[in-house]
C-alpha cells in the first residue's frame, strides 16, 4: 500500500509541473508581440513597454520562467484588469464553483444511482429501457442547450425559478441541474454496468444457493460491491464538473471561476487566464489523486494490480 501511495504521489508532482509549464507557455503561443495583442492596436508605445516589463517579456525565456514561478509561489502574480493578486480574485469565485459542482453532483447521484441500479436489477424491462434512454440523453444533450431550455420552461413559462445570478438555493437549482445532467447520464450507465457485473458474479450465485432472499442478496451483498467503482466514478467526475462549469456559469451568470475565466479572456487579462486555468487544472488533478488513493484504500485488488 505504501509503495502504491508513494508511486502515485511521485507522479503527481511531475504532472503538476508539466501543467504549470504548459500554462506558462500559453502566452508564448501568441503570434507576434503578446503585449501589443493584449493592449490592442490603439495602445501607446509607453503602455506597451510598461506591460512588457510587467510581464517580463523583455527577458530571456528561462528568466521569464523563473519570474513566473516566483510570482506564482509568492502570490504576486497580478490581474491586469482587477489590479490585484490573481489568487485573491480567484478564491472567492472558486468557492462558488465548488458549491455549484457539489450541488450538481448531488442531483446527479440522487437521479442516477437508483435509476442505474434498478435498471440492472430489472434488466430488459421497460424501466431498464427508459433508464438507458435517459442515460443516452444525459450524455448527448449539450449543457449550452439544456440550460436555456430549463430557463425557458421553469423561469420564463412557469415563473418558478430565477433566470440567473446567485442569491440562495433557488438560484442554484437550474445551473446545478444543467451541470449535473451529463454526469447523471454517465453515472446511470456506470451504475447499471457495475451492478450487472456484480449480479452475475459467482459469490452472488452462492449466496442465492444458500437460500438468502433476493432482497437480502441485493441489499447486503450486491450493492456494497457494486458501489466501489461507482464511488470512484463520482469522485473523478467531480473534477470534470469543475471544468464543465465554465459554460453553465456563463449561461446562468453564476459568479464562479469558469465565468471569471471567460471574462478574463475577453478583457485580455492573460495572467488571470493563466491562473484560472492553473487553479481549475490543479483542483482537477488533486481530486483525481485523492479519489485514486481512496479507491486503493477501499479495494485491495487495485493496490495489487497497480503495484505489479
Amino acid at each position, binding site marked *: 500500500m505504501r509503495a502504491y501511495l508513494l508511486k502515485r504521489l511521485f507522479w503527481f508532482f511531475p504532472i503538476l509541473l508539466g*501543467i504549470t509549464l504548459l500554462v506558462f507557455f500559453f502566452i508564448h503561443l501568441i503570434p507576434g508581440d503578446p503585449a501589443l495583442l493584449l493592449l490592442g492596436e490603439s495602445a501607446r508605445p509607453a503602455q506597451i513597454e510598461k506591460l512588457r516589463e510587467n510581464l517580463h517579456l523583455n527577458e530571456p525565456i528561462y528568466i521569464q520562467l523563473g519570474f513566473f514561478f516566483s510570482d506564482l509561489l509568492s502570490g504576486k502574480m497580478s490581474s491586469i484588469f482587477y489590479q490585484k493578486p490573481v489568487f485573491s480574485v480567484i478564491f472567492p469565485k472558486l468557492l462558488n464553483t465548488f458549491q455549484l459542482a457539489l450541488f450538481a453532483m448531488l442531483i446527479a447521484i440522487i437521479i442516477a444511482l437508483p435509476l442505474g441500479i434498478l435498471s440492472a436489477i430489472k434488466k430488459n424491462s421497460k424501466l431498464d429501457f427508459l433508464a438507458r434512454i435517459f442515460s*443516452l440523453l444525459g450524455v448527448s444533450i449539450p449543457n449550452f442547450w439544456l440550460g436555456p431550455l430549463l*430557463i425557458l420552461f421553469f423561469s420564463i413559462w412557469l415563473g418558478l425559478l430565477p433566470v440567473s445570478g446567485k442569491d440562495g438555493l433557488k438560484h442554484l437549482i437550474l445551473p446545478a441541474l444543467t451541470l449535473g445532467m451529463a454526469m447523471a447520464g454517465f453515472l446511470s450507465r456506470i451504475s447499471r454496468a457495475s451492478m450487472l457485473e456484480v449480479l452475475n458474479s459467482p459469490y452472488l450465485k452462492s449466496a442465492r444457493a444458500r437460500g438468502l432472499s433476493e432482497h437480502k442478496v441485493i441489499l447486503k451483498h450486491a450493492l456494497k460491491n457494486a458501489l466501489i467503482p461507482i464511488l470512484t466514478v463520482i469522485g473523478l467526475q467531480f473534477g470534470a464538473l469543475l471544468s464543465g462549469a465554465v*459554460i453553465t456559469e456563463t449561461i446562468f451568470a453564476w459568479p464562479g471561476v469558469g465565468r471569471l475565466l471567460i471574462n478574463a479572456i475577453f478583457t485580455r487579462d492573460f495572467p488571470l487566464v493563466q491562473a484560472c486555468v492553473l487553479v*481549475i487544472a490543479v483542483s482537477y488533478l488533486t481530486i483525481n489523486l485523492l479519489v485514486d488513493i481512496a479507491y486503493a484504500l477501499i479495494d485491495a485488488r487495485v493496490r495489487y494490480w497497480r503495484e505489479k
Partner: protein
Amino acid sequence: MNKRLTLIFPVLVITIFVFSALFAPSLAPYSPSEQSLCAGLSKPNLSHPLGQDKLGRDLLSMMLYGARVSLIVGLTVVLISAFIGFLLGAIAGTFGGIVDQIIMRLVDLLMAFPGILLAIALSAILGPGLGNVIFALSLLGWVGYARLVRAQVLVEREKAYFESAKALGARSSRIIFKHLSPNLIAPVLVQASFGIAGAILAEASLSFLGLGTQGTPSFGSLLSHGINFLRTAPHLTIFPGLAVFLLVISFNLLGDFLTDYLRVGEKNK
C-alpha cells in the same frame, strides 16, 4: 434497445446532415447573410420555416451552413487525432522502453488536464477561427487514440503473427502498417465515432463562448446569439441546439452500435 433502431436512426440523421452540409448553397432558401431588418425575430412561418434572427436572417439557411462547420470540425479533428494517436500509440507499443515512457508521460500530462479547459485556453490565445479550433481540439484529441492503440499493440505483440514478422526481419514500419493496422481498425473506428460527437460538442461549446469560428454561422454561435432573445424568440435557441443534440446523439448511438457489432473489448478477453 432495438438494435436496428440504434443503427437506422443515427445513419438517417447523419446522412441528412451530411447532405445538408454538402448542398447548403443549393438547399438554403436564402443567403445566410441576407438581412431583412423589418422582419427581425420573426417566428417560424411558411417562407421562413425556422424563423428569422434579430437582423432578419433566415435561421434555416444559417443552420444549413452551420452543419458544414460542425461536420468539417468533427471529421477533421478525428482524422488528425486518430492519425497522430495511432502513430504514436503504435510506436510506443511496438518499441517500448524510453520511447514508450516519453510518449505515455505526455499522454498522462494531457489527460490530467480537463479537455475543454485546455481547448478554451488555446482558442483564447490563438484567437477565433476554424483552423485554430481544429488545431486546439486535435492537439488534445490524439491522446485517447494513442492510449487505446498502445494497449491494443501490447495485446497484439504477444500473438504469433507479430513474433513471426519480427523473426522474418520485417521493419518496424512494415509491422505497424501492414500487420498491426488491420487488427487495430475496429477499436479506433469505435473511438472515432464517439470522437466526432465529442469534437462537434466541443466546437459548438467554443463557438457558444465566442471562441469558435467567425464569419460562417455555426450552431454554437447561433445558439449564443439566440439566448439573448429567449423570451421573445425561443426558436433561435431551440433549433440550433436541437441540431447539435441530434448530431451528437447520432454519433454516440453509432459508436454504441459499432461497439456491439465489432465486439470491441470482447476480442481481447
